């Protein structure tokens, strides 16, 4: 889009903006946020219960807990869903407050990268605890 003082494009501002919008995937972000929030309802309850359960357990206790495949699977599901939901939420904040396009894109992609890495690191830690103790 051109600067408002540059009369190079003979189209209205609205005309220039049309087509830059949803491209048929406008509700994807909203929908993913809702689906992950639904999944997080039971997962979060289970997570809080686990934290209370593991109080004072020590490293061996945590490893023993993760050795149960159901527990390690739920923990990895919790990590994946939490960081996906977090990434979507932080993206919504960035879109609201960062105006400049390049900086907006850079911030969103950085958040995606960090969330992905944290989810991976947590999942690999769970697998290590589950398999090697």
């Amino acid at each position, binding site marked *: 889009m051109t600067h408002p003082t540059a009369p190079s494009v003979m189209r209205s*501002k609205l005309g220039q903006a049309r087509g830059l919008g949803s491209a048929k995937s406008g509700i994807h972000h909203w929908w993913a946020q809702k689906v992950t*929030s639904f999944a997080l309802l039971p997962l979060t309850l289970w997570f809080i219960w686990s934290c*209370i359960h593991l*109080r004072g357990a020590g490293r061996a206790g945590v490893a023993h807990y993760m050795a149960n495949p159901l527990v390690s699977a739920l923990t990895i599901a919790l990590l994946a869903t939490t960081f996906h939901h977090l990434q979507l*939420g932080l993206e919504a904040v960035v879109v609201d407050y960062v105006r400049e396009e390049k900086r907006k894109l850079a911030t969103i992609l950085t958040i995606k990268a960090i969330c992905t890495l944290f989810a991976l690191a947590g999942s690999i830690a769970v697998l290590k605890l589950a398999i090697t103790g």
Partner: protein
Amino acid sequence: MLDTREALMVARTSDGRTVRRPVSPHLQVYKLHMLMVLSGSHRITGVALAGGAVLMVWFLVAAASSDAAFNWLVWLLGTPIGLLALFGWTGSLWYHFCNGIRHLAWDFGYGFEMDQLYASGKLVLAAAAVLTLVTWVAVFVAG
């Protein structure tokens, strides 16, 4: 590149001049009311929960790494600052959890009347406070 939302700011006055639309007055002008605070708190607790998510991964990675790393984190969480962070995390998590259910109810089309908005808001605040308290009682009972 200009923000595409700028396109929506272009308007015409009744005498035909092209003008930039006036922006509605917001935070500095409106009287602060409960629904605004609850809405803002949902976002603020959401961002704060990023810290909780990082802590969750830190805990798992420390447990998978070494006794030294794990014991240091456990010591850190037991300090007054650590306990305050854990308490803040619990409160934020329960608030975001309860208000998230409120949001999901809105998505299904329920609870948009003014009195319902205030009632559900008060319910969320009460539920988050009670659940935070219950969680910490359970922590001390379990220990």
